[in-house]
């Protein structure tokens, strides 16, 4: 491959101009791919995940959720309250209202059937927020959790625009009395962290714990890539779907009965 570029020009003139151009373009493409691949870790991880679709070895851990909309009560918002309380978000209607998780109620106009369920960051395998972020602040951890590195965030809000789930919000004013485990400040994008510090410590995310406490058990948290885990077993047993699966972003949050 490296020899192509070193070939003397005298070999080329006999070929039609079109073929030469095609060859050159192909070579340029190869060069870009080779140059980019070793330096950028996040992309390297992404490539691993992409191979996963084709059946190659995949990451050992990918945290995810299964939300059973049939068990979720229309008038219950325990998960939303728990998230606000645990992460120190203040309920303040208007542009300052951070929505890391929200309840969505949908009705089928034809049949009239109504379902209510929480929607939060779907921790996509190929999230649009990660794609569009100009600074690399939006990133996906090796365990599948998508976060904003606020040290790098410049507050451009591309991720807010790009996310089809409206999972990101923007902090527009100074914040006081943050929780030590949930730093948030003016000029940065934010979203559900899947309670990453709880998860790392072996606990459930605050919303899932609250749903269990409320007695609904509509949310199951676990490792999608552990075939023996409760989540993977459940996903293998019942029919589930992801929201806007047509976008091909590979959400980690699965829904049942929506």
């Amino acid at each position, binding site marked *: 491959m490296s020899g192509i570029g070193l070939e003397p020009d005298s070999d080329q003139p006999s070929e039609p101009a079109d073929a030469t151009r095609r060859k050159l373009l192909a070579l340029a493409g190869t060069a870009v791919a080779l140059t980019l691949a070793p330096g950028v870790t996040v992309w390297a991880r992404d490539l691993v995940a992409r191979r996963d679709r084709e059946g190659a070895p995949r990451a050992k851990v990918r945290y995810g959720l299964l939300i059973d909309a049939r068990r979720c009560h229309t008038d219950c918002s325990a998960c939303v309250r728990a998230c606000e309380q645990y992460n120190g978000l203040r309920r303040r209607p208007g542009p300052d209202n951070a929505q890391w998780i929200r309840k969505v109620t949908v009705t089928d106009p034809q049949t009239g059937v109504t379902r209510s369920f929480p929607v939060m960051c779907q921790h996509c395998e190929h999230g649009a927020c990660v794609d569009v972020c100009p600074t690399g602040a939006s*990133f996906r*951890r*090796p*365990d599948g959790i998508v*976060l904003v*590195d*606020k*040290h790098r965030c410049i507050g451009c809000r591309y991720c807010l625009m790009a996310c089809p789930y409206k999972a990101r919000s923007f902090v527009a004013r*100074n*914040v006081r*009395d*943050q*929780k*030590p*485990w949930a*730093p*948030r*400040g*003016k000029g*940065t994008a934010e979203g559900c962290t899947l309670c990453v510090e709880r998860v*790392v410590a072996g606990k459930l995310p605050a919303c899932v714990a609250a749903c269990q406490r409320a007695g609904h058990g509509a949310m199951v948290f676990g490792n999608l890539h552990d075939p023996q885990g409760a989540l993977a077993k459940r996903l293998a047993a019942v029919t589930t779907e992801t929201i806007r699966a047509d976008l091909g972003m590979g959400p980690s949050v699965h829904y049942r009965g929506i």
Partner: protein
Amino acid sequence: MHRRAVFWAVLAVLLSLGAVWASHRGPVPVPVVAQAAGHCVLPVAVMRREHMMLLRRVREAVVRRDVHDGRLRLTRCISCHAQRNAAGVALAVNARGQFCASCHAYVGVRPDCFACHAARPEGVGPGGFGGTVPGPLPVAAAAVMPHAQTAAGLSEGGP
């Protein structure tokens, strides 16, 4: 006319010099930094010189790679260094005269950590978030931080 102007000019200069002299209060006093109980995870001299580099290094490791020693965390620094008032309520480390603010006001550097991070500990246990601080970092841990090593070498003569 010309001499009059010179007279007023000289008078103005003298008066302003006098005003400067009258308002001069000597050098800015070196702040008294509140002492935390126990020992720091690294020698004080190292911390004074290198804490910003260490925090920057640790934040990358913690946020993006989730690999960290567990001892060098901003939350742990705050847990130890936050003073408590008479009622036992933790004070913000960036409040006037408190641990971070006292030094930073003296050197005229404004840290932006607390635009996002909580400046006071919260949570279970006397150590606040993350519990109590274990012993000092072993030499091997300091070896992965070239800045820390340099600082230790430089500060052998004293703080």
